[in-house]
């Protein structure tokens, strides 16, 4: 996880420039005044300067923080994409603020110009940062482990030992010990003795690159999801069949439209719903929603039955059908003044509460009254699956299931507004142009019916019958391409992240010299990127394994720094206990770090 030398050098170069007062802008001005021939270079120079700024770590950090801040308004304002009704409500409640929020694209934050600008800049910065790093890294992978320091015993982490074996054997054994510890190894024999240079953890950097590049892949996958996806909602009453492309509402990305929906048909055979009825504190909590359907993928294909439940969608090719809601559709029959049936069918009511107090309307545009004059009738009201009397004396539903279904409605006559061609909400009556039907006493005429009951409307308008109740299912039909790719890239990113955060990056050198009285003098020294708690264990472990490989027992304690085990590095030889921490900026920041710097500045 250490910075590459590149990043360091770039930062240093930038600072050097600033200190010299040689900012490209300033230089451009000076250039024009005193050295006109330098002028053509200035724009290029300036562009390079901007590029370097954009791809610096500090800019990346700033843009990341900006991204976090910019995401927040999307949770405080309702969003068009997932809550259009909320947007309408908010707009109605805040007449002065709403136009401003609208102008600032606050109702679609995640596709707004400013949010897009932030993440696009961030990803440009990312690519500009990561691609050159990848080049450096690839070259680094091919090059040999670093040169052995002239005096490894000067490194803070080192052990010295005397071994009985001769230098050649020690060198060979050190090489294989380090290879066994998954180091990249180069054995460098010299005239007298020699050294082994080894490095491990270069895949820490590979992990970092994999992580960042996978983020780019993830962004592309998410973008393709939103460009090529479509979503349609359709309400189906028990016994009815929905044909693929007819929807109550439909939205799609620019790369998709209704013709992409497969020509399937779906019959809702039955809707299976259960609510908690026993446990007193949980009465009415939903327990089961399941839509039993018969699916036909295309006309002429064999039908199959399926159960669509919450958390168990059905599939038609790449299109997913999920159960997004359910409710009641009272079967209401209206006969007009002439006795003709002018409305007959299950009318979906929309649940408003957890107990399914549901609202709905019936629109009868082509009726005649008792005198044979054409009249339009509208009914509006609530359906209560388990009617009781509420605290305010009005009827409410006390339970979501059908214990005592009651339909409570009021009637209107006049112009329903269906003829002017303006699309209307089928769940609402437009009050303008309508007059309420009154009883003899001049009060609003109230219809209150249990299943099987009928009521005669005043003024010879006809009768309303409540014949029974059916359930309906709301089905969400959606295709989201790019989801597999998004998953794959997120898992790759996670893999990269784990490598990059937890793989220790270490260098170890073993220098061997023939000892004066025979045998070898050995120095094992280690250096880590950053503050590596496991380095001491690594160095100890290498020496111990070297001894074991040569069949030499360990005498007392070897000279050099005797490490004390850090907490959390117990129970093994600490090979994996790196944390890459730098402790930078903290008082007493480490020599190890200074060592790393010097070494990198080589």
């Amino acid at each position, binding site marked *: 996880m250490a910075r590459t030398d590149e990043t360091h050098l770039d930062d240093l170069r930038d600072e050097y420039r600033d200190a010299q007062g040689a900012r490209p802008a300033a230089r451009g001005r000076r250039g024009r005044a005193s050295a006109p021939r330098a002028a053509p270079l200035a724009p290029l120079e300036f562009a390079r300067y901007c590029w370097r700024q954009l791809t610096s*770590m*500090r800019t*990346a*950090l700033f843009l*990341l*923080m900006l991204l*976090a801040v910019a*995401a*927040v308004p*999307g*949770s*405080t304002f309702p*969003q068009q*994409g*997932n*809550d259009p009704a909320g947007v309408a409500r908010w707009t109605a409640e805040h007449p002065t603020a709403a136009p401003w929020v609208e102008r600032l694209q606050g109702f679609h*934050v995640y596709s707004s110009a400013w949010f897009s600008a932030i993440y696009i800049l961030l990803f440009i910065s990312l690519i500009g940062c990561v691609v050159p790093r990848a080049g450096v890294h690839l070259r680094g992978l091919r090059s040999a482990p670093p040169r052995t320091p002239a005096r490894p015993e000067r490194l803070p982490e080192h052990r010295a030992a005397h071994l009985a074996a001769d230098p050649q054997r020690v060198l060979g054994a050190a090489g294989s010990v380090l290879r066994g510890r998954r180091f990249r190894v180069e054995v460098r024999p010299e005239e007298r003795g020699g050294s082994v240079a080894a490095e491990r953890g270069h895949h820490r950097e590979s992990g970092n690159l994999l992580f960042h590049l996978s983020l780019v892949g993830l962004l592309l996958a998410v973008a393709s999801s939103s460009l090529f996806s479509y*979503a349609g909602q359709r309400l189906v009453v028990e016994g009815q069949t929905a044909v693929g492309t007819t929807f109550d509402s439909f939205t799609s990305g620019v790369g998709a439209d209704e013709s992409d929906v497969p020509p399937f048909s779906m019959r809702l055979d039955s809707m299976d719903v259960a609510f908690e009825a*026993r*446990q007193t*504190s*949980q009465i009415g*909590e939903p327990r*089961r*929603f399941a839509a039993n359907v018969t699916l036909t993928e295309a006309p002429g294909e064999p039908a199959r039955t399926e159960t669509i*439940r*919450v*958390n*168990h*969608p059905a599939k038609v090719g790449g299109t997913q059908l*999920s159960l997004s809601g359910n409710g009641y559709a009272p079967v209401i029959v209206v006969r007009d003044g002439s006795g003709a049936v002018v409305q007959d069918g299950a009318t979906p009511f929309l649940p408003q509460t957890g107990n399914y107090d549901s609202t709905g309307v019936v629109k009868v545009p082509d009726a005649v009254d008792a005198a044979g004059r054409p009249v339009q009738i509208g009914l509006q009201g609530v359906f209560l699956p388990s009617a009781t009397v509420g605290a305010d004396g009005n009827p409410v539903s006390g339970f979501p299931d059908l214990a005592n279904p009651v339909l409570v409605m009021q009637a209107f006559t006049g112009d329903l507004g269906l003829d002017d061609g303006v699309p209307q909400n089928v769940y609402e009556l437009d009050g303008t142009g309508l007059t309420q039907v009154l009883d003899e006493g001049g009060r609003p005429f109230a219809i209150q019916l249990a299943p099987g009951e009928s009521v005669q409307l005043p003024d010879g308008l006809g009768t309303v019958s409540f014949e029974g109740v059916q359930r309906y299912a709301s089905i*969400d039909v959606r295709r*989201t391409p790019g*989801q597999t790719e*998004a*998953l794959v890239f*997120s898992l790759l990113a*996670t893999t990269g*992240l*784990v490598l990059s*955060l*937890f793989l220790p990056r270490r260098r170890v050198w073993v220098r061997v010299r023939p000892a004066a009285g025979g045998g070898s003098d050995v120095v094992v020294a280690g250096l880590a990127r950053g*503050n590596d*708690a496991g380095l001491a264990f690594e160095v100890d472990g290498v020496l111990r394994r070297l001894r074991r490989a040569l069949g030499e027992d360990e005498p007392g304690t070897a000279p050099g720094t005797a490490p*004390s*085990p850090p*907490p*959390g590095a*117990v129970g093994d030889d600490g090979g994996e206990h790196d*944390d890459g*921490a*730098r*402790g*930078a*900026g*903290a*008082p*007493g*920041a*480490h020599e190890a770090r200074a060592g790393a710097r010097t070494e990198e500045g080589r």
Partner: protein
Amino acid sequence: MTVDENVAQVSNLLLYSAMTAYLGSFIAYAADLAEGGKEIKAREVRRRERAGGEAGEAGEAGTVLTEPATARRRRGAAVGTSLFTLAALLHLGSVVSRGVSVHRVPWGNMFEFALTGSLVVAVGYLVAVVRAQRAGLGGGRDARYLGTFVAGPVLATLGIALRSFYVEAAQLVPALDSYWLVIHVLVAILATALSTLGFSATVLQLTQEKRERVRASGGNPGGAFMDALPGAVELERTAFRLNAVAFVMWTFTLIAGAVWAQVAWNRYWNWDSKEVWTFVIWVVYACYLHARATRGWDGRRAAWLSVLAFACMLFNYLVVNIFFPGLHSYAGV
């Protein structure tokens, strides 16, 4: 399947007992810290007397740390740890019996999330104590100095959960009835617990850093008991390790959540308010990790970013769950 209300009753009794034991351990740990503080002060006085005052105050203050503070026999800490272990066992019993009573994993609403999450924190602390102990005296730090800072928050979490989020043991609503609940929410609980421990370490780190700065400029930082704790550099390393693992867990939480959303809501990313905040938390932790590698931002500033990330996490749990409308309306309160 019906709820076994007797077992649910047992779960609540165990929880009350656990809270009593946590309270006892909190008091014992606090007493131990106070005693440690007194001892360190006394040692400082002795040392100053020995030095005869000629060395000057500032130079003296800087040397206090060199004498190991762990030598003392710590009866308070021992009692605290015993009580804490007892409390954690009762707590575990409460979580398990809650799960048994409803025949499912015990994390289906905010109350159960807090109940199980705080258990993870408690167990995490005990693991740290045991590991530090096995590392031996001398090198290993005595992690029991953190006892007060763990028992206190765990107790507070349970108290708030019981007071404000309590719901009776019950079956799941269909929206949550999925094996993704097991995966997604479990990872979220682990991430939250680790972030909490990381946050505690960061707060201690910032405190130590402040004290070290005061001491370096010749002042008296006060709070002598803090000298028993590791220094800022070591605490930073611990905080980083915890936060790094927590970040990976958050990444898994996000991914598992998106997979679940594709199954449950037909769409893997909805910018639902809970998703927005989980994303924000993730980005702020990414900022923290970036900052550690950015010159001028490492050390203290990076630590503050991790504090911010933790604040976002609390906000997500306490505020977004309850007050923001969205698809994630499973708080149960």
